[in-house]
C-alpha cells in the first residue's frame, strides 16, 4: 500500500511543522487569565511565558478552547487544570517539551487506521487520539476504527443530560458513494435515524459516551464509539460485507422495517435487483419492481406498471429527481434505467411522503450513484442485444466526482444478418446516456448535476417508424445550515417526445409528433430540532407544456393536410409541511399537509357545449379563445398524509396510514390495443383533476433474529374523476378530446403479503397480492351507459398475483436464481356476436371488461459465474446464463380482432412465447 505510506509521511511532517519551538523552565510560575482561547493561542502564550515547547496534533485540539484562571501556579498545575474532565493527558520532559496526548485506553488490538484517521480529521471536527502506526490490513483497520473513541464537538465539562447532535454522511469506504436508507442507531437509549437520499444523517443523543451503529444492506455493520461533547460531525465509511464469513447477518433494514415509519414502501438496492433473472440478462428495475407485492403490469413488455390498482399514469417516476414519462425501451423489453448507474430505488405505495405529489398511486424514486470519488473505475457489459459501458471517477479527489453510463443496441446490425428477408425492413434499437457530477463545495454545500437522454427507434417490418425519447437535466444544491437543519433546491427540465413517421408512399408520407415538457423548481427543507421531531417543508412548482399532437406532411410530394393541435400549458404549485414525531420508542407518527394549486393557462381555445347534454360535436356551441398566460381554469385543494406506527410487545409493529392526493395530468391511452404513443393531457375546464384517497393498515414482524421479514398490508382506495373513454373514443389528434372522455369513480382494495429473506446463502422473497380495481360511470352527461352504470373492472384489474424470487449462493463464484410469476389474466371486452343492421355487418361486444385473458404464468432461471476473486486482477468479469420463460408458456400479451375477407377473426399475441436462453458477459475494472 504505497499510497498509504505516502500519506502517513505527509501527516507526520504536518505534525512536526505544527510543533512550536521554545525553551524555558518548567518551574516558572504563571499568573494570567485565559478567556476562551483556542488551544493553539493558549499554547503560544504559555510558551512565551514559560519558554516551554508544546507538541500536539492541531487537529485534535483545534476545537478545544481554554478558559482558565492561573494564579501563580506551575505549568503542570495549569495543564492539570486545563485538561481536567477531558480525555487529554500531558507529559513534560526534561527539555521542557510538553506533549499533549490522549488518555490511555485499553485496546486488545493495535489501532491501525492511518488512512481513516486522516480522513476523519480532514473533513470533520471529530478528534481522534491514537498513536500512529502504519497499518496495511483493512480488517485490522476496521477493528481499529471500531475501538477508537471519536470525540465529537467542543470539549466541555458538562457531559450529562443535555443532548447534542451528531450529523454526517454514511459512505462506501471504497467508492465514496453515499448510502441512502442506512440506519444509524444506538442501543441505549434506543435512538434510530435513517440516512436521507444524500446518505446524510443527523442524530440527537445525550452528551456522553455512545456506541453508534450503522447498518446498510450488503455492508458490514459499522460501530463507532463516540464521546459526545456538543454538536459535531462524524462521517462513517462502511465496508463491504465479506461474503466468506459464514453468517453475515444483516439486520439493518430488517429492523427498519419494523421501526421505520415507512409504510407500503419498498426499497431495493442495485445488488438485489441484479440477482433477479430477467430476459436478455440485463438487470431491469421495472421487471424487479413487478415482483414486489402490489405492483402489476397490464402485460408483458408493456410500458409502465400499476400499483395497488392504480393506472400507469398514476405513478410518479423519478430518476435522480428527473420525472421520467416513459420508463421503458423497446415497448418495455428494457427499462429506461441503466443498472450500472442506479443505486437503488424506493417505491411508495401507501404512505407517500408529503414532499411528493401530483400522482395518485405511487412514487418510484430511482436514485443514481455518485461517481467513485477515490479512483477512476469502470464497468461494462456485453449481451446479445445490448452493450453498456460506465466510467466513473474523481475529477478532484474527494471533492468532485463524475459518472457517465451509456447503453446501446446493435440489434439493427443483427437484423440485417438474418438470412430470411422477413425482417429486412425492420429496425429496433435504443440507446441511453446518463451523467452525474457531484461536487462538494465545502462541508456545508454540495452540488449535483444530473442528465439523462434516451432514444428509441423501431420499425416492425412496416413502413412506419416509431421514435421516442426522454431528455432530462437537473441541478441540485444541498446546503447544511447546521446539524439540525438543511435544505435542498432543485431546478430541472424534463421532456418526453415521440415521433411516428411513414414515408413508403411519398404522397401519404407523414410525421406524427407529440411531446410533453416540464420545467420544475423545488425546495426541500429538513429540520430536526431533536430526535422527537423531524420537520420537512418546501415548495414545488412545475410548469407544463404539452404539444398534444401534430400531423404534418413529410417530404415535398406529400399531400397530407397538416393537422396540429393547440399546445397546452399549466402551472402546478404546491407547498408542504410535515412532521415526523417520535412520541416514544414504541409510538411515532408522521403527519403532513400539502396544498396544491393548479392553473390551466392560455393560449388555448375552449369549447362550450350545450348544458346538461353529452359533449359531442353535435352539442358544440361556442369557442372562446384565451390569450397567453391567461388563467383558463384553476383547481386547488389540500392533500393529507398521515402515518402512525406502534411497536408491539412481541417486537412486531402495526402501522396505519391515510393519504389523499390530487393529480392534474392524465395519460390518454387506450389499453385495448398496443399503442406506441401515449398522449398526455392536462386538466382543463372540462377535465377535472383526478383525486385519490387511501387508507391502509399493516402488520410487520421479523423472525429468526430479523433474517426473515414478513408483512401484511391491507388497503382501500377511492378514486374520483378517473378518466375512461366513451365507446369509439378517438384519442389521437382529437381536437375535442373532452367529447370522448367520461368521468368514472373507482374503488380499489386488496391485501399484500410479503415474506423476505435477505441474508444467508438462500435469499429471496415471496409476495402475494389480492387486489381489485373497479370503476363506475360517474358522469351525468356521458350520454351512454357502461355496464348499466354498475361497477366494472378496470383494464388493469388482476386480482391474484404471486411472485417468488429465490437466490442461492453455492460458492463465492457461483450463484443461481429462480423467479416465478403468476397473475390473473387481465380483463377484456370481447366481441361475442355478429349482426346485420343498417346495411352492414356489425359486431356485438360483451359488457366492458366482462371476460379475462388466460392467466399469466412464467418461470425464469439464471446462474452467474464470477471470475476468480484475486483482488489484483486488471478486470473482474462474470458470466451469466439463463432461461427466460422456462415453461415456454405462451402468455397472451394482446388480443385483437381483425376482419379477414369479411370474417372477423381473433388473434392472441405472445411476446415471449417460448423459452428464451440468454447469456451475458460483464466486466469491471
Amino acid at each position, binding site marked *: 500500500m504505497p499510497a498509504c505510506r505516502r500519506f502517513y509521511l505527509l501527516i507526520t511532517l504536518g505534525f512536526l511543522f505544527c510543533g512550536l519551538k521554545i525553551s524555558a523552565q518548567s518551574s516558572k510560575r504563571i499568573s494570567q487569565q485565559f478567556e476562551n482561547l483556542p488551544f493553539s493561542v493558549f499554547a503560544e502564550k504559555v510558551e512565551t511565558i514559560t519558554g516551554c515547547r508544546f507538541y500536539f496534533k492541531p487537529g485534535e485540539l483545534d476545537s478545544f478552547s481554554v478558559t482558565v484562571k492561573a494564579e501563580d501556579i506551575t505549568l503542570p498545575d495549569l495543564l492539570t487544570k486545563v485538561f481536567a474532565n477531558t480525555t487529554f493527558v500531558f507529559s513534560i520532559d526534561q527539555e521542557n517539551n510538553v506533549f499533549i496526548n490522549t488518555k490511555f485506553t485499553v485496546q486488545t488490538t493495535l489501532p491501525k487506521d492511518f488512512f481513516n484517521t486522516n480522513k476523519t480529521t480532514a473533513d470533520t471536527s471529530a478528534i481522534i487520539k491514537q498513536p500512529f502506526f502504519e497499518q496495511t490490513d483493512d480488517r485490522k483497520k476496521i477493528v481499529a476504527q471500531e475501538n477508537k473513541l471519536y470525540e465529537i464537538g467542543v470539549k466541555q465539562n458538562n457531559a450529562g443530560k443535555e443532548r447534542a447532535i451528531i450529523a454526517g454522511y454514511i459512505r462506501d469506504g471504497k467508492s465514496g458513494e453515499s448510502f441512502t436508507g442506512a440506519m444509524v442507531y444506538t442501543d441505549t437509549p434506543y435512538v434510530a435515524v435513517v440516512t436521507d437520499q444524500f446518505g446524510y444523517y443527523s442524530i440527537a443523543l445525550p452528551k456522553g459516551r455512545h456506541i453508534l451503529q450503522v447498518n446498510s444492506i450488503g455492508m458490514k455493520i459499522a460501530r463507532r464509539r463516540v464521546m459526545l461533547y456538543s454538536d459535531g460531525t462524524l462521517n462513517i465509511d462502511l465496508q463491504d460485507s465479506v461474503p466468506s464469513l459464514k453468517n453475515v447477518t444483516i439486520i439493518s433494514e430488517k429492523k427498519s422495517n419494523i421501526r421505520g415509519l415507512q409504510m407500503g414502501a419498498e426499497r431495493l438496492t442495485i445488488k438485489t435487483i441484479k440477482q433477479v433473472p430477467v430476459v436478455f440478462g440485463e438487470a431491469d428495475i421495472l421487471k424487479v419492481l413487478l415482483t414486489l407485492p402490489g405492483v402489476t403490469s397490464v402485460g408483458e413488455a408493456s410500458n409502465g406498471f400499476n400499483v395497488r390498482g392504480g393506472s400507469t399514469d398514476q405513478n410518479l417516476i423519478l430518476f435522480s429527481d428527473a420525472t421520467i414519462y416513459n420508463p421503458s425501451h423497446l415497448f418495455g423489453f428494457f427499462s429506461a434505467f441503466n443498472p450500472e448507474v442506479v443505486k437503488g430505488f424506493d417505491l411508495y405505495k401507501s404512505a407517500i411522503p408529503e414532499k411528493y405529489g401530483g400522482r395518485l398511486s405511487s412514487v418510484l424514486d430511482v436514485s443514481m450513484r455518485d461517481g467513485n470519488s477515490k479512483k477512476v473505475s469502470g464497468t461494462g457489459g456485453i449481451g*446479445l442485444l445490448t452493450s453498456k459501458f460506465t466510467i466513473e471517477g474523481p475529477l478532484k479527489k474527494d471533492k468532485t466526482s463524475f459518472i457517465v453510463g451509456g447503453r446501446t443496441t446493435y440489434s439493427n446490425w443483427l437484423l440485417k444478418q438474418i438470412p430470411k428477408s422477413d425482417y429486412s425492413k425492420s429496425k429496433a434499437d435504443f440507446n441511453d446516456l446518463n451523467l452525474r457530477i457531484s461536487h462538494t463545495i465545502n462541508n456545508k454545500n454540495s452540488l449535483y448535476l444530473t442528465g439523462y437522454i434516451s432514444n428509441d427507434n423501431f420499425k416492425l417490418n412496416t413502413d412506419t417508424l416509431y421514435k421516442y425519447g426522454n431528455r432530462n437535466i437537473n441541478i441540485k444544491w444541498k446546503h447544511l445550515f447546521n446539524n439540525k437543519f438543511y435544505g435542498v433546491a432543485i431546478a430541472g427540465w424534463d421532456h418526453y417526445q415521440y415521433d411516428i413517421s411513414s414515408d413508403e408512399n411519398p404522397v401519404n408520407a407523414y410525421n406524427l409528433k407529440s411531446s410533453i415538457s416540464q420545467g420544475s423548481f423545488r425546495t426541500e427543507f429538513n429540520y430536526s430540532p431533536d430526535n422527537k421531531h423531524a420537520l420537512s417543508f418546501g415548495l414545488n412548482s412545475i410548469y407544463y407544456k404539452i404539444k398534444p399532437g401534430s400531423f404534418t406532411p413529410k417530404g415535398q410530394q406529400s399531400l397530407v393536410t397538416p393537422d396540429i393541435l393547440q399546445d397546452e400549458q399549466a402551472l402546478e404549485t404546491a407547498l408542504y409541511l410535515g412532521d415526523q414525531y417520535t412520541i416514544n420508542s414504541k409510538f411515532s407518527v408522521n403527519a403532513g399537509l400539502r396544498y396544491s394549486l393548479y392553473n390551466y393557462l392560455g393560449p388555448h381555445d375552449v369549447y362550450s*357545449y350545450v348544458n346538461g347534454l353529452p359533449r359531442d360535436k353535435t352539442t358544440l356551441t361556442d369557442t372562446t379563445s384565451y390569450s397567453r398566460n391567461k388563467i383558463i381554469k384553476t383547481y386547488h385543494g389540500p392533500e393529507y398524509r398521515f402515518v402512525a406506527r406502534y411497536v408491539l410487545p412481541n417486537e412486531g409493529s402495526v402501522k396505519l396510514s391515510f393519504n389523499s392526493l390530487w393529480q392534474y395530468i392524465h395519460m390518454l391511452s387506450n389499453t385495448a390495443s398496443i399503442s406506441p404513443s401515449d398522449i398526455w393531457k392536462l386538466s382543463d375546464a372540462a377535465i377535472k383533476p383526478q383525486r385519490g384517497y387511501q387508507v391502509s393498515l399493516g402488520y410487520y414482524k421479523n423472525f429468526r433474529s430479523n433474517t426473515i421479514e414478513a408483512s401484511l398490508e391491507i388497503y382501500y382506495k377511492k378514486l374520483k374523476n378517473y378518466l375512461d373513454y366513451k365507446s369509439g373514443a378517438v384519442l389521437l389528434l382529437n381536437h375535442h378530446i373532452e367529447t370522448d372522455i367520461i368521468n368514472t369513480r373507482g374503488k380499489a382494495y386488496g391485501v399484500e403479503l410479503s415474506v423476505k429473506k435477505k441474508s444467508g446463502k438462500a435469499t429471496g422473497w415471496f409476495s402475494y397480492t389480492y387486489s381489485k380495481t373497479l370503476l363506475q360511470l360517474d358522469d351525468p352527461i356521458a350520454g351512454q*351507459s357502461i355496464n348499466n352504470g354498475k361497477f366494472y373492472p378496470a383494464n388493469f384489474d388482476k386480482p391474484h398475483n404471486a411472485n417468488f424470487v429465490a437466490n442461492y449462493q453455492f460458492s463465492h463464484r457461483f450463484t443461481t436464481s429462480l423467479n416465478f410469476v403468476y397473475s390473473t389474466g387481465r380483463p377484456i371486452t370481447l366481441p361475442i356476436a355478429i349482426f346485420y343492421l343498417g346495411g352492414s355487418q356489425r359486431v356485438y*361486444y360483451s359488457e*366492458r371488461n366482462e371476460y379475462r385473458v388466460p392467466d399469466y404464468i412464467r418461470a425464469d432461471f439464471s446462474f452467474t459465474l464470477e471470475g476468480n476473486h484475486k483482488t489484483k486482477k486488471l478486470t473482474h468479469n462474470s458470466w451469466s446464463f439463463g432461461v427466460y420463460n422456462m415453461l415456454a408458456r405462451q402468455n397472451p400479451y394482446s388480443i385483437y380482432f381483425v376482419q379477414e375477407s369479411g370474417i372477423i377473426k381473433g388473434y392472441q399475441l405472445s411476446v415471449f412465447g417460448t423459452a428464451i436462453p440468454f447469456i451475458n458477459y460483464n466486466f469491471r475494472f
Partner: protein
Amino acid sequence: MKKILQISSVLLFSLLWLIACKKPYDPPEIKIATNFLVVDGNITCGTNAVTTITLSRTTKLGDSLLFNPELNALLYIEEEQGNVFPISEQGNGVYRSQPLNLDPARKYRLKITTPGNKNYVSDFVTAKTSPAIDSLTWKQDGDVTVSVHTHDPLNNTRYYRWEFAETWTYASLFHAEWIVKDGWIYVHDSINQIDSCWRTANSNNIVVGSSIALSEDVISDFPVAVIPQHHEKIGKRYSILVKQYGLTEEAFRYLQLIKKNTEQLGTLFDAQPSQLKGNIQSADDPNEPVIGFISASTVTEKRIFIQHDQLTNWIPVYSIETCGNPIIIDQNRTDYRIWDYPDPDYTILYYIMGGTMAIIKKPCIDCRARGGVNVKPSFW
C-alpha cells in the same frame, strides 16, 4: 460466428413480436353460437305509411353467414291507447305493414313473438315528425358529396337519421343484337334489351345528425353520401333518394354507438368498444340481449339526379373483368334459335355466316349480369 448469429436470430424472432407468436384466439365465450334477436326498422307514422321491420339473429364470430333471417315471427305495432296493427311477413326476415295512418302525436311500441314462442317488446316511443327535406345538393371536390338541407320551424326534431337509395344507369360494353331467354335466342328489342340497365343500392352506413347545438333546428349542408371519384355510379346518369326520419335523443346515441363500435375495427389505435343497450326487451328473460332500437317517425324524402356531363375529371372505372376475345363456337346446330351452351357465364355475341356463333362472358354484353335490371324505373 454463424452459430452466434443463428442464436441471435432466435432471440430476435421473439423480439419482433408482431411477427412472432401470433395464434388464433377463440375462447369458449366466442365459440358459442350466440343467437340474439336483431331488430332493424322504424315505425313509420303519417298518412298511408308502410312500416318495414327486418328481423334477424346474430351469428357467431368467424361465421361466414352474412345474414341470418328470423322467419315466421308475429309482429304488430301497439298504440299506447291499445290499438294494434299487424306487420306481415314478406320473406327473408322482412316484415311489412299495410299502409297505415299512425298519428305522430301518439306513442307506439313493437311487439314480436318468435316461432320459439318467445315474446319481445320495445319501450313505448314518442313519435317524431320529420320536417320536409328542403333540398338535396351535391358538389364535386374530386369525389361527389351529396348533402341534405332541412329545418324544423317548431324546433322539435333536433335528431335526424337519413337513409338513401342510389340508382344509376349503365350500358353494356358490347351492343347486343340478340338476347337469350329461357334457352331460346330472340331478337333484341326495346323491352327485351340488355344494353342499358338500372341498378339500385341501399345505404350501408348509418347516417345520423343533430342540430342540438344550434339555436334553431336547422340542418345545413349535412353530407349524406359520398361517391368516390371515377366511380361507375355516375358513368351516365345517377339518382339518389334520401329518406329522412326524426329520432329521439336515445335512438340517436344508440345509432352513434353502433357506428363507432364497428366501423373502426382492427386499427392500431382501436377505440374502446362497449355493449349496446337498446330499447327492446325479452318479456321472458330481462337479461337476454336484444339488439336494435325502435323509433317512430314520419318519413320525408327527396330525390335528385346527377348527370355525368355535370362532373369534371370523371372517367368511369367499370368493375368488369377483362372480356377477352369472343370465342367462336361451331356446333352442329339443329336449330339456330336454341341456346344450349353449357357454361352459364357465357352468352351470344353475334352469329357468323354459316351457323357459327361468337360468344362472350355475360357481364360484357348483358348489363343484368352486373346487378341491375333492364327495366327503366318509374322515376327515371
